[in-house]
């Protein structure tokens, strides 16, 4: 039997011809990532090992993005631990405020991850890079500490589940809607410990930004990684960016899958996930009428250029409803600059939106848009757990940027075509 793309990348990094689901293997890592919440814990553990340097200072990436620019004294202390570690070890890819971005928007943009890579990060959404055809997965801080010392980690080879998306995507249906729909179908543990492989004509036509969005939310179905087979679209994206050589892997025609799903996208509507789980998904038409207090457009799920363009398309010449706060958070400094160049900031400002420097901010209830008790928010983020964006008595609905923008205008959850 052949191998899946995930198995091939793992085998290549284990120095093996073949690996099989269920095997525990030791793999060489191309990159290890930490942020201002997880790295301080990893640094504490790293120092216990007793080594005096990281395995490769070019391959450890540290991004302060969750609580920076520092939201309070305690987070300032955490960010400082990471900054000082980066200086002490001469970490090449440490991104200071003003040069940083939300980590999973930043790494692909900077060419630090590419097709065929094996990346681990102490952040669950590290699985985002599967959108470029990499194997990437989230781990905890102690795993990051071990990886920073060894340059390798252990992994269990996951079984793969194949998703085939057929048909032409209707207007306003995006990668976010496909992945929400999928999680709605299989549930938040529907792919527990597994690799989700996203294929089919609809994905083959999708730009990289949409693919990154899909892979980003694989963890919301419990998956170890999400992956899109790399193609010409991927090549155009990585060429000129990639800081290291990359390799295109592809699944064999006779590769083994635990399950396969066929979805027809041509009848899909934009999707909305209701509180308090990403699996509570309904078509937007069934959410219409739910009033909101806040809308957030940003995050590692939907803080990229295509996302901001889509939101601007809805917001152009329109005003945010008087009962709503709209927050727009570009994913990186580059995205910020590009959005400004394209005139998107004019559109957002004219509409009455607040534009923030790149940060995770409200996505995890850190700062910059915390919800009060009883408040309701529509967000382009990836989690709507109890208390995720603030008070445990607040609510988060998940959607695409176009739906969030339309909802901001109408003051209630709405489809983009309802905005007249």
């Amino acid at each position, binding site marked *: 039997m052949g191998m899946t793309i995930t198995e091939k990348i793992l085998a290549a990094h284990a120095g093996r011809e073949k690996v099989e689901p269920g095997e*525990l293997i030791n793999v060489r890592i191309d990159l290890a990532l930490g942020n201002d*919440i*997880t790295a*301080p*814990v990893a640094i*504490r*553990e790293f120092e*216990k*090992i*007793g*080594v005096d340097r990281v395995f490769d200072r070019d391959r450890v990436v540290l991004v302060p993005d*969750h*609580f920076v620019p520092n*939201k*309070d004294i*305690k*987070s300032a202390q*955490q960010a400082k631990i990471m900054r000082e570690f980066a200086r002490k070890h001469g970490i090449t890819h440490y991104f200071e405020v003003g040069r940083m971005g939300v980590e999973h928007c930043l790494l692909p943009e900077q060419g630090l991850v590419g097709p065929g890579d094996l990346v681990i*990060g*102490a*952040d*669950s959404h*590290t699985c985002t890079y599967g959108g470029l055809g990499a194997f990437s997965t*989230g*781990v*905890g*801080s*102690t*795993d990051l*500490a*071990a990886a920073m*010392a*060894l340059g390798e980690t*252990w992994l269990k080879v996951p079984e793969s589940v194949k998703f085939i998306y057929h048909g032409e995507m209707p207007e306003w249906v995006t990668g976010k809607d496909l992945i929400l729909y999928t999680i709605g179908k299989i549930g*938040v*543990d529907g792919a*527990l*410990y597994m690799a989700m492989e996203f294929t089919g004509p609809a994905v083959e036509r999708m730009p990289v930004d949409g693919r990154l969005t899909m892979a980003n939310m694989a*963890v919301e179905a*419990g998956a*170890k990684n999400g992956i899109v087979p790399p193609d010409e679209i991927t090549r155009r994206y990585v060429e000129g960016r990639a800081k290291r050589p990359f390799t295109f892997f592809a699944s064999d025609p006779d590769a083994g899958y635990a399950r396969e799903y066929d979805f027809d996208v041509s009848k899909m509507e934009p999707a909305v996930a209701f509180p308090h*789980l990403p699996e509570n998904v309904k078509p937007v038409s069934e959410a219409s009428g739910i009033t909101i207090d806040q809308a957030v457009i940003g995050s590692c799920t939907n803080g990229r250029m295509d996302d901001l363009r889509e939101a601007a398309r809805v917001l152009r010449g329109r005003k945010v409803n008087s009962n709503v706060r709209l927050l727009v958070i570009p994913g990186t400094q580059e995205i910020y600059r590009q959005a400004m160049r394209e005139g998107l900031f004019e559109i957002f400002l004219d509409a009455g939106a607040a534009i923030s420097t790149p940060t995770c901010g409200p996505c*995890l*209830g*850190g700062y910059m848009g*915390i919800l009060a008790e009883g408040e309701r928010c529509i967000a382009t983020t990836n*989690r709507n*757990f*109890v*208390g*995720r964006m*603030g008070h*445990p008595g607040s609510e988060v609905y998940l959607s695409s940027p176009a739906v969030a923008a339309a909802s901001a205008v109408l003051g209630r959850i709405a489809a983009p075509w309802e905005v007249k």
Partner: protein
Amino acid sequence: MELRGRTWKFGNDVDTDVIIPARYLNTSDPKELAVHCMEDADPRFPAGVKPGDIIVAGKNFGCGSSREHAPIAIKAAGVSCVIAKTFARIFYRNAFNIGLPIFESPEAADRIGEGDEVAVDVEAGVIRNITRNETYRATQVPPFMQQIIAAGGLINYVAERMKRDGKV
């Protein structure tokens, strides 16, 4: 080794945001984290939890974020172990890495009630419900994970290995 305590029962898909909300992640001090452990799921928990107590939950325990602060908070709160139907994968790894004993047992998760007295034989993976006089089996832990436990967590395991290889 035997772990023994009274149980706190929770449902399915207990996520890391309710185990330790992000608003408290501006510190990584285990004692500070413990004070807020599970407070969004059960406000009585942080003040009521006693050393040795056991958390029992349904499927997919620890889903969501990779924050190791979640198992750290549970351990620092004095919880001796977590029993669930299934665990989310990053939480599963993290728990072993930091030395929080966890047991997968759908049967135990279904049968054990809130406040039951439970004793767990760690090596044998046998869970005894003293209140109801029942016994359940936990899923076998892979041998590699047992090595990590035996070494006292991943960091000790790595340190030993690097010493052996002459890298420290």
